[in-house]
């Protein structure tokens, strides 16, 4: 009746998961009670849960990502402290538990922390920067978000009920096959990642279609902001690479559930094929994360240097170059598996060549700053920290791309330090830079500058103190994922690394303080004009936060940096452009189909994990029924009357008059 599920699935004998589960359950109950008591459910349902507005969905993606980053960071703290304590000692985490922690850390950080944040940024910004009202398929967008949330839910459920995988974040067979891991851990991983992978693919399709088929008048390809180019490249990679992950995990699922032989080590299976296919996804995945990060930096460097981005066309070429070549380098993740000299040489060369694209971008950012009037506000600090950090991380990457060198450093702490260097320096710094930069646009008030700067410095210093020792340890011969260490010479490096973690904890606390203080002081920090940073692209033409229809009248773009042109013209002529003719606007209606689909996807995933077949069938039928029911609806859109549009826009124009006056009083814009 309940498949493999029984009371023994609750980790009563393991204190850490038990206490954590208890605390989390209490927090969840507390939040749900608060919302119920305050009567916020109708608002939440109407404005957020059933919303198909790309801005709301983007914010929810980012919120999910930030929460998951914190959970992943907690796992990291446990790992670093265990290694510092387990030098010829047992430490405090038994191997079965430690293995789950490093697996969860990788899975959560990449797939449920960084991916949702990057998807959230793309969702929020692309329509605004392209001057349109929403993405190509708004309701589908909601489905995509809720499916990602469903995957995150399943991963977190494994803490309370059952266990997580112990295989590392990519579940290599034969260990991940049913013969060697009969428990539910790998199944939790498989269903969570499959379900959220569908969600990610949906965003990929949405953004590609939006960028290629939905831009406002006058915005040709070479007038798009660079962030939109990087979003396009990243989503093309999503469309190209995520299906490979779907297929590979499906094959492993078939092996585990019905005894097939794709990757078994008996009866003709080939475990190395899993490694090959999963990295054919895995390498594009990191470029999926880093390309939008590069786009964020492009926006920030030009805005905070007061100059157009240097070398726009070379940026575009470099972006598409990286997009294509990133699909030709994946073997560098398994040079040591034995493919031989010819194959290793090809992929070693391609992995070195791909650095050229990033090199072009870095030079362009530096030349953007040169000759500009640089303002060192928080987003710019994160960006400059990125330049320093990422260059070094990238250099270690090119070192690893040389197969003979990789034979010594593969799966050592040197590798671990390298990929954290580029992911944290590249993606995480970009996320914080972007959060600081676009927070006023999304929520209508600025973040406290002082706390923001402090958070940056803690993160930057903390990162280097944590990970430099890991480079040294790698060269001293320490392998990754060790629960027990029997080389006392490594002790000082492990201790320094834990000090670094302490600094990072201060960084997290400072970041949270920034949020708390800013919310408390939000009236004082209110963004009244919609353009707090003297921005250059179209999202800064809207009020903060933008109305649900984004633009009262879609802009007519006449050059690069659309909004900068509008501002210059207004300052020169000392007046705003004339009030436009307001038309009624059609917007899509909200829909619960996303939440409904994800609910049954979660039930389906959970029942498949625990082999509760009847419940899985019920969930599948219910999901299909919901889909058909949704397809049968008659009303897709509602009309916003012209008077309402006019009212909102006139308020915006009044704020812009004030901004214009302030700009005219300053010295002439460049």
């Amino acid at each position: 009746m309940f498949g493999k599920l029984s009371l023994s699935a609750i980790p009563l004998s393991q204190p850490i998961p038990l206490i954590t589960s208890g605390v989390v359950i209490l927090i969840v109950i507390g939040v749900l009670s608060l919302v119920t008591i305050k009567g916020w459910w109708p608002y939440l349902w109407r404005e957020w849960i059933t919303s198909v507005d790309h801005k709301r969905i983007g914010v929810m993606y980012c919120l999910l990502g930030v929460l998951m980053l914190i959970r992943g960071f907690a796992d990291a703290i446990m790992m670093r402290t265990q290694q510092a304590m387990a030098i010829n000692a047992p430490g405090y985490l038994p191997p079965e538990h430690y293995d789950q922690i490093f697996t969860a850390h990788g899975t959560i950080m990449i797939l449920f922390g960084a991916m949702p944040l990057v998807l959230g940024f793309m969702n929020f910004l692309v329509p605004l920067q392209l001057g349109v009202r929403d993405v190509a398929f708004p309701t589908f967008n909601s489905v995509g978000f809720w499916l990602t949330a469903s995957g995150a839910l399943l991963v977190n459920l494994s803490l309370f009920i059952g266990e997580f995988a112990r295989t590392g974040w990519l579940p290599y067979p034969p260990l991940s096959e049913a013969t060697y891991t009969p428990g539910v851990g790998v199944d939790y991983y498989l269903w969570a990642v499959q379900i959220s992978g569908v969600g990610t693919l949906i965003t990929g399709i949405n953004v590609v279609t939006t960028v290629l088929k939905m831009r406002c008048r006058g915005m040709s390809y070479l007038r798009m902001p660079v962030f939109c180019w990087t979003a396009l490249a990243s989503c093309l990679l999503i469309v190209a690479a995520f299906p490979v992950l779907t297929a590979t995990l499906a094959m492993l699922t078939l092996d585990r559930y019905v005894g097939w032989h794709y990757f078994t080590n008996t009866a003709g299976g080939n475990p190395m094929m899993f490694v090959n296919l999963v990295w054919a996804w895995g390498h594009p995945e990191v470029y999926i994360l880093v390309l939008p990060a590069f786009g964020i930096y492009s926006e920030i460097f030009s805005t905070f240097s007061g100059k157009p981005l240097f070398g726009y066309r070379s940026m575009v070429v470099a972006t598409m170059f990286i997009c294509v070549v990133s699909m030709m380098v994946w073997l560098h993740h398994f040079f040591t598996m034995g493919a031989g000299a010819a194959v290793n040489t090809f992929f070693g060369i391609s992995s070195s060549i791909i650095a050229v694209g990033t090199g072009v971008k870095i030079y362009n950012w530096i030349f953007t700053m040169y000759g500009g009037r640089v303002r060192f506000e928080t987003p710019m600090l994160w960006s400059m920290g990125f330049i320093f950090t990422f260059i070094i991380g990238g250099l270690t990457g090119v070192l690893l791309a040389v197969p003979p060198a990789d034979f010594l450093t593969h799966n050592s702490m040197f590798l671990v330090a390298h990929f954290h260097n580029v992911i944290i320096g590249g993606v995480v710094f970009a996320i914080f830079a972007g959060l600081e930069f676009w927070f006023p646009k999304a929520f209508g008030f600025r973040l406290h500058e002082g706390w923001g700067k402090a958070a940056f410095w803690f993160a930057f210093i903390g990162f280097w103190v944590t990970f430099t020792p890991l480079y040294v340890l790698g060269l001293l011969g320490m392998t990754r994922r060790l629960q027990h260490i029997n080389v006392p010479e490594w002790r000082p490096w492990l201790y320094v690394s834990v000090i670094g973690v302490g600094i990072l904890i201060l960084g997290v606390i400072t970041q949270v303080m920034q949020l708390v203080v800013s919310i408390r002081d939000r009236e004082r920090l209110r963004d009244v004009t919609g353009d707090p940073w003297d921005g250059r692209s179209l999202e800064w033409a809207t009020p903060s936060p933008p109305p649900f229809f984004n633009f009262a009248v879609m802009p007519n773009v006449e050059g690069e940096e659309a909004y900068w042109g509008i501002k210059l013209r207004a300052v020169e002529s000392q007046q705003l452009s004339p009030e436009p003719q307001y038309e009624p606007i059609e917007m899509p209606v909200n829909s619960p189909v996303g939440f409904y689909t994800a609910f049954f996807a979660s039930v389906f995933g959970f029942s498949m994990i625990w082999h509760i077949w009847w419940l899985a069938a019920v969930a599948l039928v219910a999901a299909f029924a919901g889909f058909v029911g949704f397809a049968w609806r008659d009303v897709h859109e509602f009309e916003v009357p012209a008077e309402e549009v006019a009212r909102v826009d006139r308020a915006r124009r009044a704020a812009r008059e004030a901004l214009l006056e302030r700009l005219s009083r300053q010295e002439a814009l460049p």
Partner: protein
Amino acid sequence: MSNLESDRDLYAGPLNDLEDHAPGDEPPEEESGHWVRNANLGLGFSIVLTASAFLLAGSHVIYAPAIPVALIVLAIAQMGVHLVFFLHVTTGPDNTNNVLALAFGILVVFLVVGGSIWIMAHLKQNMMPAAQLMQMQQ
């Protein structure tokens, strides 16, 4: 859902002749004759190519080791027939996005399939077979 939607001139339902369209979608003036003609031609060519492939497979008409190559050529040709006649993917400017997307997809398929075959063949040559590995454990 732009405010173009409320512009009656622009939104006329069936496709205008001058616009981009998806593969397999056609401007309406073309469909009388043109559409059905495409379908008939496509079916005709496909039948010829399919029959050739089936007949070739078991026969001795050509040099035996060349048969797999010939089958693949026939398959690619038939895929092309489907793309051109059934899906109407052309080289016109109304189809540029479709062609580019298709080219990208073909590149990815080639990289994944070709790359995997190349890599796995080398691994098979260099590494001990799984059955032998398992025997060593016993």
